[in-house]
Each structure stands twice: as structure tokens, then as C-alpha cells.
């Protein structure tokens, strides 16, 4: 009798866990759909090649599942994702001393090749402008670059501080100094 009851309880737990796993997985994939591209861009700006960026982003979402299954805090998962991606990137840089790659190598220009010279010229100017900003950003300190890229991704100062383990005032200073330097360089 005891064993039957225990088995019945175990069965219920198992079924509940399966449901829980499924809903957690669904939640992780929803976050993936929303954030993966931004995360990859952020990781790319930290100097990681595209293939490693993809791996880091996948690892980040696997860790998100672990975090959720362990009953981790869910108050700001977006900032949590960036923080984990940031830390994984740092680990990767330490481990492999990954060579920095130019983000523009991964930049794709939407649409067919321009039919008119005017369009081609605009596109070229746009590309040069982006190339100049990219080169200038890469000359900033890692903290300034990280703060500016996260800011461009739409994170608030409080979230950036959480991701980079900085105080909010330090985030503000990094953004200010980064923008001032960029203005001088461009």
C-alpha cells in the first residue's frame, strides 16, 4: 500500500515536472526570439567572431533554462541575459584570446544591388559612415563601448549597471565620456 501511494505521488510529480519543463522551455524560446539578435550584436561588439557569438548566445539561453528551473529571480531577465552573455564572452576571451573581428564583416545590406548610381552612392556613403562609427567605437575603452552598445540596444542605465557590474553613476560617466570621445574622433 505504501509503495503504491508513493508511486502515485511520484507519478504526479513527474507529470507536473514535465509540464513545468515544457512551459519553461517555451518561455526560454520566447526570450530567444526577442533577444537573441541583440545579444549576438552585443557580443560581436565585444570583439567575438560570429561563430563564437552564436555559441555564446546559445549557451546563454541554456543557462537561462537552468536559472528558471532552479527557481531563479525573474524580475529582469533581459538584463540577466546580457549579464550572462557578457560573462561568457569574457570567459571566452580569456580562454581563447579571440582575435577581434570587424563587426562590419557581418553587416548585411538589405535589398538587391541598386539599379541606379544615386542609390549606390547613398549606400556607399551610409556604409562609410557606419564604418567610421565602428572604427571610432572600437577605440573606446571596453567599459565605454559596452555601455554605449547596451544603451543603443535600449537598456536603461540601471540595467546596464546590472549587466556590467557597475554603479549607475559610472554607467552615466562612461556614456558621457564615450560620446564625447566619439564626437572628437568623427
Amino acid at each position, binding site marked *: 500500500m505504501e509503495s503504491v501511494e508513493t508511486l502515485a505521488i511520484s507519478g504526479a510529480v513527474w507529470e507536473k515536472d514535465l509540464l513545468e519543463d515544457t512551459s519553461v522551455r517555451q518561455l526560454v524560446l520566447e526570450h*530567444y526570439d526577442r533577444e537573441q539578435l541583440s545579444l549576438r550584436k552585443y557580443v560581436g561588439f565585444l570583439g567575438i567572431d560570429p561563430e563564437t557569438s552564436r555559441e555564446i548566445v546559445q549557451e546563454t*539561453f541554456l543557462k537561462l533554462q*537552468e536559472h528558471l528551473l532552479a*527557481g531563479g529571480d525573474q524580475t529582469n531577465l533581459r538584463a540577466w541575459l546580457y549579464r550572462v552573455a557578457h560573462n561568457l564572452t569574457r570567459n571566452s576571451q580569456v580562454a581563447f584570446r579571440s582575435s577581434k573581428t570587424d563587426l562590419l564583416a*557581418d553587416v548585411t545590406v538589405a535589398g538587391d544591388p541598386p539599379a541606379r548610381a544615386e542609390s549606390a552612392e547613398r549606400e556607399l556613403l551610409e556604409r562609410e559612415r*557606419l564604418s567610421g562609427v565602428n572604427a571610432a567605437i572600437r577605440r573606446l575603452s571596453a567599459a565605454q563601448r559596452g555601455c554605449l552598445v547596451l544603451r543603443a540596444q535600449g537598456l536603461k542605465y540601471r540595467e546596464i549597471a546590472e549587466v556590467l557590474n557597475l554603479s549607475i553613476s559610472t554607467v552615466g560617466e562612461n*556614456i558621457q565620456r564615450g560620446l564625447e570621445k566619439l564626437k572628437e574622433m568623427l
Partner: protein
Amino acid sequence: MNMPGHLANDVLIRALDDELPPTEAAAVELHLSCCEECRRRSAGFRSLSIHIESLVASGPECGVGEREILARKLESQAPLSRVHAGSPKLKRALGWALALAACLAVIATLAPRPNAPAKPASAALAQVQSGTFEVDGESFISLPYSNPDLPATAAHIVQMQVPVASLTAAGIIFEPVSNGAASSDRSVLADVLLGMDGQPLGVHVLSFD
């Protein structure tokens, strides 16, 4: 760079980023409405910010099939994560199961019996032959229900009527010819040794009904 009579860069940037308290933001708006120099500097920071956003937005696109790869990894990882994470819910459920088993054991121990009362198994278990062991000189046929790694000193003996079907399920078969106990609806009086987890460690059949 701060200029007397003008807003500092950090204030202009925080205003652009909606990071100022409402009253300070209103004061900045008021100042900008009447200061050409600050408007020009603010527009410069705004333009630069838009350039950075464009650059960040022009990054790599998602590779085909990456989502499916992740979905497969998540599926294979989930049970492992649960084990590593030690899900509180699972722990709670196991706790309840153990508590239930313990309660049943206590009930069985305290239930009135006409025969000998429960005896503590203070002596260490002594294996005498394969499948049997002794406790204080009494032989028991080992049962596979209790965790053998738990301390044997916490085990105790309960005398109870045990259905033959239960013993059969545990691999203890009665000879149908020599006695009438083989019938599955019969029960036998037995000393049952309960482990620390409340599950049977062994059984010693005393008599048939």
C-alpha cells in the same frame, strides 16, 4: 566639458536618455527652448546616438535553424538541469513521500497487537547467507524496499499480518503443497524489519493463519 550658463554634457545626455528626474527634465526642456548653443550640442549627441544605434542594428542576422538547435538542446538539458538544480518542488515532493512512509511506519508500530511488541533493532545487521540476515539472532529474508545505505541502528521490528501476495511480489514464494498459505488472499504473521526510511528491510514469517 562644462560651459558657464549652459547645461553640462552629462545632463544633456541623461535628458536624451530619459534618465533625469521629471523636475530636472522639465528644467532642461525649458533651458533648451531658449538656448541655441545647448540645442546644438544636444542635437549633436542625438545624431551620434542614432549613428551608434544604426551600427548596432546592422549587425549579424540569425542563422537558419539556430532556434531549432537551441530547442533540441533545451529539451535534452531540462532533466539534467533539474537534477543539478535540485528543484525545490521535487525535493518537497520527496520529503512528503518520506514523511508519508514514516507516518505509516509509526502507525504500524503503535497499532495494538496481541503478540509481541515491536523490538528495537539495536544490534548491527549480520549477513548470514545470501538474501538473509540476522538481527539480534532473528533471521530475516531481505526485502528490496528500504535504502540499504541508511544506518541500520535506526531500524526497528514491527510484528504484523502481511498479505501473501505482498510477499510473493517481493520474491518470497510459499510452497502450495506443504501448506495453505500460498493462496494470494491469505496473510501471515511476520516480524517486519523497517529501515530508517520506514520501508521494509526484511521479513521473518512467524506463523500462518
